[in-house]
């Protein structure tokens, strides 16, 4: 099982780097995120990355669907779905392999922002806890976006549609927990809405506190959407 996942992972990961897309993506992400962060950095004059991590959910909102949109739509379009699904893989091996490859790619992209914390460490004495917590939270958040995007990509034949729907779906999930949305939700549902929102959990982790509840939340989201993707794949046999 694991070996088979590894085979898919290897293929997917090398596909990312065999075309220019990966490099463009990484550079674009780093430039955009650094630009927004550094814009206010010297004005605020604080040796922390809080604003960087505040930005990430919004940057991920557009960048992650760009990664996931091709996960399934590309295979369908080029017909390689037929090759993949007639090889001796279990559905779960394919889905998890693809997911992990996308996740690894995202982690790599985010880690490449290391010059920022390095610079801050040189300029001041930042508290490392929230910074590490921020990165962990970013990976979990990104992982959740990826799972949502992957599921939506499995539903769409067209990459553009997959992209747009993923952005919308992630956006909805992101703002459910935000104050300005909570205002208009009836009191009884408020706690539920707040729990469902992606960002509220992120705030907690961003403070450097890795609460198991938040980690469980993110893993649940990831698990739910990976499972949904597997079912979608399986449904082709019941058509």
């Amino acid at each position, binding site marked *: 099982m694991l070996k*088979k996942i590894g*085979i898919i992972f*290897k*293929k997917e990961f*090398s*596909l990312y780097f*065999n*075309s220019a897309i990966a490099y463009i993506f990484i550079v674009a992400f780093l430039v955009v995120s650094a630009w927004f962060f550094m814009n206010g950095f010297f004005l605020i004059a604080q040796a922390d990355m809080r604003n960087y991590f505040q930005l990430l959910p919004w940057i991920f909102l557009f960048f992650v669907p760009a990664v996931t949109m091709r996960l399934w739509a590309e295979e369908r379009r*080029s*017909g*390689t*779905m*037929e*090759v993949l*699904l*007639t*090889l*001796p*893989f*279990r559905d779960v091996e394919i889905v998890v392999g693809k997911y992990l490859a996308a996740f690894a790619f995202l982690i790599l992209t985010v880690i490449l922002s290391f010059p920022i914390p390095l610079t801050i460490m040189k300029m001041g004495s930042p508290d490392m806890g929230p910074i590490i917590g921020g990165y962990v939270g970013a990976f979990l958040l990104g992982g959740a976006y990826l799972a949502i995007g992957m599921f939506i990509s499995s539903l769409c034949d067209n990459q553009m549609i997959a992209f747009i729907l993923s952005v919308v779906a992630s956006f909805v999930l992101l703002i459910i927990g935000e104050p300005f949305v909570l205002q208009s939700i009836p009191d009884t549902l408020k706690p539920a809405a707040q729990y469902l929102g992606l960002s509220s959990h992120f705030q907690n982790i961003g403070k450097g506190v890795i609460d198991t509840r938040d980690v469980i939340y993110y893993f649940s989201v990831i698990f739910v959407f990976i499972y949904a993707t597997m079912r979608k794949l399986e449904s*082709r*046999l*019941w*058509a």
Partner: protein
Amino acid sequence: MIEVNGLVKRFGNAVAVDNISFTVKAGEVVGFLGPNGAGKSTTMKILTCFISASEGSASVGGYDCFKHPLEVRRQIGYLPEQTPLYNELNVIDYLSFIADSHSVPAKVKRSRIGEMVETCGLKRMVHKDIGELSKGYRQRVGLAQALIHDPKILILDEPTSGLDPNQIVEIRELIKSLGEDRAVILSTHILPEVEVTCSRILIISDGSLVGEGTPDQLRKHLQGQELFDLRIKGDKNEIESVFLTQDWISSHEILGTELNGIHRFKLNLIPPMVGEDSGERLYDLSVSNSWKLLEMKRGGATLEDVFKDLTTREAGLN
């Protein structure tokens, strides 16, 4: 090794595969022959567990396609129509991926890839990205990936599509030699290919199996009829309506009209009783209708005639 029973596949209201049953044993190369859209690819997709049947059963190597898809896929080498490939990978990486997927042991993998490159003539293209290859080479990569794990059962959808005449000969020879100890099923709409490579032919039209047999058997099927090629000068509509009234003319086809109003017909006749001759009957018919019968030729049955006959007639083989 392949057993199909009462297979039906519907897409919404359209029936793509309508009650097909057949078997393929090891040592056979079975050709799936049929016009485009007949249901050949759909049947193959069911055999490779890519889609599922609406009714009926399909089993490969003893495993049912619906219940044990993993075991089925382990035993087969599949070349899908249109030969989809990962364009950004190079040939070696791609073959390596496929070999890994089929759990080809690491020790053997390198030599297997080497053999495939050799057999399929890919030596010069080995380090190129697949997206850069011409159609012929893509087809060869497709074939290589179907063979790389040395499967006992091969399912090839239009394996020579896109190849030039030289390559086609090589690949057909390869398929024939593979068929000696494996079960091979290939689909095509190229008639000569089926005659040359296949030991048995299944003719499919509109989702149904309309003919089955060795090339010789199928040719004999048509010899239960007689074929005539005629050139007649006369009024086309009148001639055709007379043909329709004669019950010993089972079908006629107008091949064309030359200048001067000479029409060329191809006739399918029911052989007459002993003592009578079809040629004479045609002559008498022309005379009694005052046609100018300019040429009359007995035609032999080619596989093409069988094919046309079976796929345009409504009745199947009894």
